[in-house]
């Protein structure tokens, strides 16, 4: 007895295959939608900003003349900020990840920490800005310094780093641990000599992506009050500073049309830095990805 009408199945087949084809095109269009938007966006920015982008632009301080305005202080500020944020967030983030993956017992407290981290990942950056303003700038009297900005940013990207480090650690096959333990290695020896080296590509990739987020953040730094004009380079973590997005924001607020073009040039610089950071992440991912 045949319950499946083969002929009917046959008849429906063509329709199914066609709808497969059509939807495939739809999905394809959807995924290039993002790329098209990106192209439009980049086209506008580049056509406006490129004429202003030259060596002088990179090596001059801000100026009231659009043609003389440069982005040196902002680049230096961003670099300083990142060099505070990167080590702090990496150490704490990786430490947290190691704790959660290697040491934590499955109990309420651990669950709480996990929940807390994924919750922090969703907290808007303005709220971190309020935290930074109240705790670092005011309460701890750090002022509007690089260290205050750097700490705020560290906390902001901490959850991203924790999660990506956790994933990197989790991706290490069990058999690597077994091999090390079976040799009589202690837990810390195993972590230091097997786990960390193997997880470093994943950690760095996640770290770089997190830093790219930090380098483009405007709102929290506006809130803790990064400077708008500074015509010398920061000397230490207590110095005042400005960063790329703030400088860009400042230029876009100017009445003179040329400053808006200068802002585009600033955006190009920021995008190039982002692209560089992303490429480094990809290179690391490809180069060091271990084939177990």
């Amino acid at each position, binding site marked *: 007895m045949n319950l499946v009408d083969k002929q009917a199945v046959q008849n429906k087949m063509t329709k199914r295959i066609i709808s497969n084809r059509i939807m495939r095109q739809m999905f394809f269009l959807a995924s290039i939608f993002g790329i098209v938007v990106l192209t439009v966006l980049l086209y506008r920015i580049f056509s406006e900003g490129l004429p202003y982008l030259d060596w002088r632009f990179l090596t001059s*301080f*801000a*100026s*009231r003349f659009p043609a003389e305005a440069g982005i040196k202080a902002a680049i230096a500020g961003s670099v300083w900020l990142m060099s505070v944020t990167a080590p702090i967030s990496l150490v704490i983030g990786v430490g947290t990840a190691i704790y959660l993956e290697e040491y934590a017992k499955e109990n309420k407290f651990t669950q709480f920490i996990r929940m807390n981290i994924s919750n922090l990942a969703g907290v808007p950056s303005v709220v971190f800005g309020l935290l930074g303003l109240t705790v670092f*700038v*005011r309460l701890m*009297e*750090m*002022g*509007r*310094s690089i260290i205050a900005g750097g700490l705020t940013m560290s906390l902001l990207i901490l959850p991203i780093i924790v999660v990506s480090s956790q994933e990197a650690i989790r991706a290490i096959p069990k058999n690597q641990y077994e091999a090390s333990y079976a040799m009589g290695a202690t837990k810390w020896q195993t972590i230091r000599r097997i786990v960390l080296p193997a997880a470093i590509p994943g950690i760095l990739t996640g770290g770089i992506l997190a830093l790219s987020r930090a380098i483009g953040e405007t709102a929290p730094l506006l809130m803790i*009050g990064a*400077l*708008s*004009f*500074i*015509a*010398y380079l920061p*000397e*230490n*973590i*207590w*110095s*005042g500073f400005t960063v790329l997005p703030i400088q860009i924001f*400042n230029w*876009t*607020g*100017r*009445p*003179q*049309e040329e400053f*808006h073009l200068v802002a585009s040039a600033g955006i190009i610089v920021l995008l190039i830095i982002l692209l560089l950071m992303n490429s480094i992440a990809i290179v690391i991912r490809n180069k060091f990805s271990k084939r177990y």
Partner: protein
Amino acid sequence: ACNNTGDSEKSRDEEGTSNTDQHTRAETTEVVVDGSSTVFPIMEAVAEEYQKENQGARVNIGTSGSGGGFEKFAAGETHISNASRPIKKEEKAALEKADIDYTEFQIALDGLSIVINKKNDWVDQLTVEELNKMWSADGNVTTWADVREGWPDEEIQFYSPGADSGTFDYFSEVVFGEEGDIRQDASLSEDDNVLVQGVTGSKNGISYFGYAYYAENKDQLKAVPIVNDSGEAVKPNQETVQSGKYNPFARPLFIYVKHSTLKNESVYNFAKYALENAGAMAESVGYVAKPDSAYEKALIRLDEIAGK
């Protein structure tokens, strides 16, 4: 209290106190300026020139807004505070409490420009009363016809700077005085360029903002002549603003200088330089200079305070 440099950080630790009147600043070469974002471009220009002429000089400028600036000024964190409005009572009190003596200097003028769309060919001039009627929260103006007989029966679109800005303060002060509130259905934006976009994009738009934003967009916007106290309808431009003919919307811009910090050579030099050049710098960034005599008087006053 807080600092922006390592040097001052160190000396603070040595003193072990966080007194509000920071002598510590006297040792540093850094000049710290903060306050109004409206005044910022002028002071940025001054600082730029100053640093060109004095190698190694260090000036940094923040844009916390006039109020934010006074707050830092009272906390002893800054030497000079920029403001787009005169200091308020509470701010005075705070400075007094912190034992800070200061002097106010007017460094430039800004002609608050009331602007409309290029295609708007009916509005030839406006009086302050009409503005009051238009912008009032409890006025019943929705269309141009409600403002003046004969104007088209089309809905007005209101654009206004953020209610938290000095420009907004000044405008509502002039138009409403102590009583009355500005209408709340206006589109507000913190960014004056965004307002420019707003009026450029809508035929029935009206807005007001600093002269520079109008001057830069003359080809896209029209400034409305405003009837001044002598009954004359005046358009904002360098001359009418400086001479005071464009009133009541010509507003002064200020810097406030802390007396004790003038002992510090770098602050004194910078303040002096600022007063000497503010006029020229203001013009170069789209504001209006005060008459030369005003700056001369200000410089004498500065030297008096500094004891020179």
